[in-house]
């Protein structure tokens, strides 16, 4: 049997290539995930440990993370140790650069003056050495537009203190990171705002502050790591989910390869049985073949994965240095896991086809070309049951907003569709191919003749397409709903409000000419003192707000007798509560109005035109509300408008930034999901090319006969291309229907309870693109097999046996 086994490997090795590629890709995927996880972990480890690298002990809260240390005790403890201790923590304070307000969450941390305790890395300028100097984190500097030499006021009122930026630094330790760093004595100015999480100590620790413990730096880092680790791990789990999808698709591809190869070799197996091989011997030989393919492919996958993973880490380091990526150790469990998964997938996928090998009778060899008829009876009972159960579960899931039930139901429906594939897919292929002329009809008949094979081939693509479409539709729905929500929270992209002077027509013209401004409307009103507010504010009316507002101007439609105030613009200064009646005074006129709140148009009160008429006879332009054009850069536009607003004493309210960050987040999610699913789709397409390539070999005589009967080379190529395109189209269309359905179920189950008024949004354009790409990819998958088939001359094909 050894001779047979080796000879089979030699003869059929080329036919296993595509299956091996599928396994390789899936295994490499797993290994890359492992290496990235390991890299992220070691990056975190380096960063976490940086502030403690010269410490012998780290003092931290006993019950971390649920308890904190008393700052006063920690300060006393640190002072007592002098040069031998360095506290790590930060204060969150308001900060201003000149008149410009910086982020509300400006954080200030300590920077040591001695080399021993300083963990920040200098990027430009120098380190702060005394009170009155500060170093700014490079990314904070980028975001806030700060540079060496700038003066910053940290804190307000009595606690305010001016510092000069003397350097920009990188902060490799995320937990100790702050926007800016000052020396310890300077930081103690804001001791009331200070949170201190740990102290690095050299030498004797001595008596600890209350509720504190002392750990070795290693033990401390390990404790913190397990906490952060959970996030890295959950990311890995998500990535592994996609790897699982890729592995599942590989199973389908490999199972198909084996069943086609074995169908073709069934007579060989029967012959072996005739000459005395036992059932066990035949099966063992075949399983060993599968094992060899599995081992080689998994090994290749592991190696490719290691190379790719390290390459990716280098790329991430080069492109995004903010992401902490350390040198990855080889994650041995991941490598072994990936290898084992690849081998297991190959063995599982070959299991079913080998069962057919067992059943072959020795007599099959003697029958004159009985022709292994691929027609198999496929019951519809099981798939139907799965469909019904799945749909019922989905119904309940939508009713109860249960994600678990939704997943179970979706899985059940999908399994039902996959199982009914052998009945469903050939019919769909026939229907799709029928009106397209004899060549395509022949292609459709070819596909329909092997229902199981065709179904498995399409199933692999179906998985990828269904998930892709579900993600696209789900994201589009989520995004549309969020847009509406944000439209209510930030109705005006950018509002320019002037409480001091009326705005001029000239300014309006210049605003309209600013690049990135799509439309700008002047808003008329009068400056009035609203009781409970410190300064007078413009009270305006904007019947035309609908022209620029993202909520269609709803926020600006205020009933007479009410005034709507932007809660965000005043923050804590807004003492009147919604529903309160306040006196509004403009000049010598006064009126009682009921307060309503909203957000997103800046420091102005919005009233009905009638209300404004009682306050003033001559409304002046007090604000300009601006709608940005699509794709405008929020920061740039904000800065440009700021320049126009500053000289006239107007302020800018920029709602566009929220839009942008949300947009970016959604895009990152969508594209990463699509990229990861892309791997499954690539494997599926390899599968289509593989099935087609193998059936081209199998049908060489059929093709030769067709050529003899008068099928031209071009027609033969077209026939095979049509078969591939029909397969991928049917899979794609079916996947689109399923994907949209699943997205609808997910919308009803998850999005609707989270966001009121969410409506299903189908991204037709994206769906069209996916279908088109799948059809083209199908065409691409057919290129090689079709060329090979057309090269065979009719005579050569006919003499094949």
């Amino acid at each position: 049997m050894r001779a047979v086994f080796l000879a089979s490997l030699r003869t059929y090795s080329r036919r296993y290539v595509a299956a091996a590629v599928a396994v390789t890709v899936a295994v490499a995927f797993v290994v890359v995930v492992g290496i990235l996880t390991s890299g992220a972990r070691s990056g975190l480890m380096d960063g976490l440990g940086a502030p403690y690298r010269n410490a012998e002990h780290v003092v931290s809260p006993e019950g971390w993370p649920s308890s904190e240390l008393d700052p006063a005790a920690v300060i006393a403890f640190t002072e007592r140790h002098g040069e031998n201790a360095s506290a790590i923590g930060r204060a969150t304070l308001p900060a201003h650069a000149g008149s410009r307000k910086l982020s509300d969450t400006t954080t200030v941390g300590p920077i040591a003056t001695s080399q021993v305790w300083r963990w920040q890395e200098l990027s430009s300028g120098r380190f702060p050495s005394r009170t009155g100097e500060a170093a700014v984190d490079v990314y904070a500097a980028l975001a806030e537009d700060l540079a060496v030499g700038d003066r910053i006021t940290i804190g307000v009122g009595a606690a305010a203190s001016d510092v000069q930026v003397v350097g920009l630094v990188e902060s490799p330790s995320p937990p100790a990171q702050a926007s800016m760093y000052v020396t310890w004595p300077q930081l103690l100015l804001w001791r009331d705002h200070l949170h201190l999480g740990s102290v690095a100590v050299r030498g004797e620790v001595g008596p600890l502050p209350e509720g504190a413990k002392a750990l070795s730096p290693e033990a401390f880092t390990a404790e913190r790591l397990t906490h952060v680790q959970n996030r890295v791990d959950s990311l890995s789990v998500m990535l592994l989910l996609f790897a699982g999808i890729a592995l599942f698709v590989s199973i389908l591809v490999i199972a198909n390869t084996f069943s086609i190869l074995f169908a073709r070799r069934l007579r060989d197996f029967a012959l072996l049985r005739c000459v005395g091989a036992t059932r066990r011997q035949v099966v063992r030989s075949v399983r060993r073949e599968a094992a060899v393919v599995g081992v080689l492919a998994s090994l290749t996958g592991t190696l490719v994965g290691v190379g790719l993973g390290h390459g990716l880490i280098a790329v991430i380091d080069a492109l995004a240095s903010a992401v902490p990526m350390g040198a990855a150790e080889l994650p041995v469990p991941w490598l072994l896991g990936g290898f084992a998964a690849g081998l297991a997938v190959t063995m599982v996928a070959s299991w079913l086809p080998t069962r057919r090998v067992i059943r072959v009778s020795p007599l099959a060899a003697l029958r004159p070309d009985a022709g292994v008829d691929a027609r198999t009876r496929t019951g519809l009972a099981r798939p139907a049951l799965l469909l019904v159960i799945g749909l019922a579960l989905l119904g309940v899931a939508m009713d109860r907003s249960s994600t678990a039930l939704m997943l179970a139901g979706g899985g059940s429906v999908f399994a039902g569709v996959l199982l009914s594939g052998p009945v469903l897919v050939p019919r769909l292929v026939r229907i799709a191919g029928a009106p397209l002329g004899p060549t395509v009809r022949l292609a459709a008949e070819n596909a329909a003749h092997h229902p199981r094979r065709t179904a498995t081939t399409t199933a692999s693509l179906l998985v990828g397409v269904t998930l892709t479409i579900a993600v696209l539709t789900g994201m589009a729905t989520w995004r549309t709903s969020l847009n509406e929500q944000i439209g209510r929270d930030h109705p005006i992209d950018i509002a320019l409000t002037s409480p001091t002077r009326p705005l001029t027509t000239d300014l309006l013209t210049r605003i309209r000419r600013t690049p990135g401004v799509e439309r700008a409307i002047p808003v008329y009103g009068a400056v009035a003192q609203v009781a409970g507010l410190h300064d007078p504010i413009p009270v305006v009316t904007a019947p035309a707000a609908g022209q620029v507002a993202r909520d269609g101007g709803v926020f600006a439609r205020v009933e007479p007798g009410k005034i709507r105030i932007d809660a965000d613009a005043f923050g804590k200064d807004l003492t009147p509560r919604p529903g309160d009646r306040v006196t509004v005074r403009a000049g010598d006129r006064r009126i009682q109005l009921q307060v309503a709140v909203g957000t997103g148009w800046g420091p102005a009160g919005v009233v009905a035109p009638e209300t404004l008429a009682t306050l003033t006879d001559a409304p002046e332009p007090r604000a300009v509300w601006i709608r940005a054009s699509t794709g405008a850069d929020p920061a740039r536009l904000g800065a440009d408008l700021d320049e126009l607003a500053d000289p006239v004493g107007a302020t800018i309210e920029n709602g566009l930034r929220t839009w942008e960050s949300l947009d970016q987040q959604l895009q990152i999610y969508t594209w990463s999901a699509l990229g990861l699913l892309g791997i499954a789709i690539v494997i599926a397409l390899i599968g289509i090319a593989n099935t087609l390539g193998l059936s081209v070999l199998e049908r060489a005589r059929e093709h030769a006969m067709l050529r003899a009967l008068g099928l031209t080379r071009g027609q033969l190529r077209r026939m095979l291309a049509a078969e591939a395109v029909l397969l991928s189209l049917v899979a794609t269309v079916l996947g689109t229907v399923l994907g949209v359905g699943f997205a609808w179920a997910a919308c009803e189950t998850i999005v609707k309870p989270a966001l009121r008024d969410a409506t299903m949004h189908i991204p037709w354009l994206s769906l069209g693109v996916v279908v088109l790409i799948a059809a083209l990819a199908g065409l691409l998958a057919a290129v090689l097999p079709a060329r090979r088939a057309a090269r065979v001359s009719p005579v050569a094909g006919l003499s094949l046996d």
Partner: protein
Amino acid sequence: MTGSRHDPAPRLPRTAASPGAVAARARNLTKTYGRGATQVHALRGIDLDLPRGGFTAIMGPSGSGKSTLMHCLAGLDQASGGTVTVAGTDLGSLDDDALTIFRREHVGFVFQSFNLLPMLTAGENIVLPLELGGRRIDDAARERVRLLADILGVADRLAHRPAELSGGQQQRVAIARALITQPDLLFADEPTGNLDSTTSAEVLDHLRRSARELGQTVVMVTHERDAAAYADHVVTMQDGRIA
């Protein structure tokens, strides 16, 4: 007339065709495979005329070149030297596509096995050559299918797939398919190779009737003397030459 110099076949009465007309002609036909030491001369200068409306058998042992001769005459393979003229067309002047279309219009085939496409019904298999040529299946075509199916005794099997037909029935469907285009030449390559003697006799009888009753030129390649006996003329091949 058979154009062979050494014609061992007995002269049998000829029917439908007009005497002297030639359906296919080969002149100094050679075919070699490979090169150098492994070169094989499959055909070493064949001169042959196939009479229109005649039933010719090409006989010879395995490796004598009879199949190669058929392939060259049928336009399935390009000769290395010499000329083949079928229905007034020099096959050597045609490229692959032109040759394919020529086959589609002028030549019919019946093979030993793998004769029918398994995924099409018998009826669909019969009209396949018309469909490949892009012809509409009109009433006349349907009428011809019915006529051929009647003659060949497969009229009640047209809706069945090949797997549901016996070997003899499959071969008769294949003959019907070869005849549907009314080709100038019908080639049968060991048409009875896979059949038992009774069924063989039936199929051979049908081939002979095609020649006699439909005036069809039939060329059969076989190594069975019994089968050759059904033919009007027998050409015997030996080592790439007509013996």
